[in-house]
């Protein structure tokens, strides 16, 4: 093993934690996103509907208030005008000067109300028609008042005949004109009320169409969303079932091969076909090797199940990276040697200790090395590099251990799925590379449980780099574990 050689792509992979893929929650996230979208649409629709209904109600209220106020005003004007004339006639009906003065007062009070009402109408008039009829009413009322004053004077003087003559000559005619003006104003109010009513009705129809439209769209959107969610769930269930089936088949296959070897060896020995001490020794070695394979497989499955248990405790201790790498390389040396691989190791000097569970970190690295052996194709090279990384994603410095191969690589569409449990790519299955699909999932779970992470960068037919990100141990806090002596042993730094 050459510890001085460089692995140029390993560092690059270490700085690309963005390629770290999510694990198996696509359906759940997409469902939540769809529900959020439906919620947003419902909120927006609700706001639009409320705004529309409110504007229609306000419009109707304004119309009602305007109509009522208009009718009230015109009614007041008509009453005050009649009262002016009526009081004048009351004065005519008595010879008592005191009563005549009282009726004259009443008549003047009423005419003041009319003048105030006409002024207000003119002040608030908006259309040319309103202004014209307002001015005409003002003019006609002034003309009538001058006649009324003469009539009142004649009555108070005691010239009843003269008063009646004056009223018949000019008063009746002028008051009729005033009445016509008031009727014109009334008609204008009616026209305006009709226009407003038509406007409100149109607005109401428009609102109704909008409400129905947006509700329809919302309903369609909701149905589509529910359908998509159900479909997504169904696909997830189908995929899970397929993965489980594949897992069972794979595990069965993985178990059957060593069992077949063991069974055949046992049969040969039992049938007396094996002769000689050396041959029996070879058979024993084969049986032991196959048994160890089975034990490793069962241990991996059990470990995967254990990582799913949140209560599973880890013995986190400071670990020297070089000791860790050496230990793992020692454990996998037989496999690497038998497969004919060359391992290049590069560990940066002055690398700080990492914090982690020794067996868990070793398991991670071992899985990565075994995978590199399995998926290297015709290449017989593996690179291991340990370095310090200043990661923005992890907000601080981390120690990274990268395991690189020049093998078959992983397609970009599969990068996000390689950490899913039981996942195995179609290409790998087609090439009959055995495995359970648990190794990477297990490694990432272990790394995350220790506050670290596992990322991947890969290119088909070029190779892959798996980077284990680990936390730096705070110095003098805990004694450094002695990797060589086992999980519980510690040595002084």
């Amino acid at each position, binding site marked *: 093993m050459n510890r001085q050689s460089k692995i140029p792509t390993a560092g690059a992979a270490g700085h690309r934690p963005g390629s770290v893929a999510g694990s198996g929650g696509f359906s759940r996230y997409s469902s939540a996103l769809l529900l959020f979208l439906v919620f947003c649409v419902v909120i927006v629709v609700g706001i639009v509907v409320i705004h529309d209904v409110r504007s229609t109600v306000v419009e109707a209220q304004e119309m009602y208030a305007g109509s009522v106020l208009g009718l009230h005003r015109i009614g007041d004007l008509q009453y005050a005008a009649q009262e002016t004339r009526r009081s004048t006639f009351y004065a005519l009906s008595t010879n008592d*000067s*005191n009563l005549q*003065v009282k009726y004259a007062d009443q008549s003047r009070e009423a005419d003041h109300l009319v003048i105030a009402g006409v002024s207000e109408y003119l002040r608030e008039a908006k259309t040319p028609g309103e202004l014209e009829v307002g001015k005409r009413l003002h003019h006609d009322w002034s003309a009538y008042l001058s006649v009324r004053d003469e009539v009142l004077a004649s009555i108070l*003087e*005691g010239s009843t005949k003269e008063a009646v003559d004056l009223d018949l000559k000019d008063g009746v005619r002028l008051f009729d004109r005033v009445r016509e003006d008031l009727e014109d104003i009334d008609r204008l109010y009616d026209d305006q009320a009709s226009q407003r009513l038509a406007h409100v009705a149109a607005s109401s129809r428009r609102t109704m169409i909008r409400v129905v439209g947006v509700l329809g769209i919302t309903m369609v959107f909701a149905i589509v969303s529910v359908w998509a969610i159900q479909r997504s769930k169904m696909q997830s269930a189908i995929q899970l079932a397929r993965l489980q089936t594949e897992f069972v088949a794979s595990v069965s296959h993985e178990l059957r091969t060593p069992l077949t070897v063991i069974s055949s060896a046992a049969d040969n020995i039992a049938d007396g076909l094996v002769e000689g001490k050396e041959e029996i020794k070879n058979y024993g070695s084969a049986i032991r090797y196959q048994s160890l394979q089975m034990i490793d497989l069962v241990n991996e499955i059990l470990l995967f199940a254990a990582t799913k248990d949140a209560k599973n405790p880890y013995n986190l201790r400071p670990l020297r990276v070089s000791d860790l790498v050496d230990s793992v390389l020692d454990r996998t040396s037989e496999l690497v040697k038998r497969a004919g691989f060359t391992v290049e190791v590069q560990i940066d000097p002055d690398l700080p200790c990492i914090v982690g569970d020794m067996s868990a970190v070793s398991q991670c690295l071992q899985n990565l090395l075994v995978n590199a052996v399995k998926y290297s194709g015709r290449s017989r090279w593996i690179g291991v590099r340990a370095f310090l990384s200043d990661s923005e994603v992890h907000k601080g410095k981390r120690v990274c251990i990268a395991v690189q191969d020049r093998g078959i690589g992983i397609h970009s569409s599969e990068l996000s799925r390689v950490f899913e449990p039981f996942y195995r790519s179609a290409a790998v299955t087609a090439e009959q590379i055995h495995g359970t699909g648990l190794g990477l999932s297990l490694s990432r779970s272990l790394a995350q449980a220790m506050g670290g992470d596992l990322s991947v960068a890969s290119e088909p037919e070029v190779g892959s780099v798996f980077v284990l990100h680990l936390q730096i141990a705070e110095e003098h806090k805990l004694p450094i574990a002695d990797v060589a002596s086992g999980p519980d042993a510690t040595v002084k730094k």
Partner: protein
Amino acid sequence: MPRWVALLIVFGGAGILAAAISLAAGLPRPAPPESSAASDQNLAIVVNVSNPTENLSMGELRKIFLGERSHWPNGRRITLVMIEPGHPERAAVLNSIYQMNEKDFSYHFLHGLFTGEVFVSPKTLATPVGVRKFIFNVPGAIGYLRPSDVDSSVKVIRIDEHFPNEKAYPLHLLPPLAK
């Protein structure tokens, strides 16, 4: 005493005196003693604001109140307004203008209307407010009121070129004190 000190005292004293005089001149002067009391005891002759007449002699006023004139110079018919018996204003008018008692007053108008010597029959109102409102409504009306009952709705005319608040005004609410 030095000369300049004497001059300073003289000019200073003169300045202070001048300031005191000017301050006294700026203060409101008290009203003439007879003004308000006298005008309150006089009787104002009032007409409609549209009436152009500004002044009447005592003789013209008597003719109008006796009903011997029927129209104003502007052509408006004269309407005489009296207040009901019992009011001091009526007593003052009977005393100052008619120089009659109530009985003679009634007889004068009954007889005059019957013979055609009188053209105007007086209108009788119960209160000074009624009188004022009547005059306000009738352009040719003429009546009498205490100055305190007068407002802008009617017009006060001069009698013998005098307003009621003047000393030489001839119509008094109470008989004039003996000299």
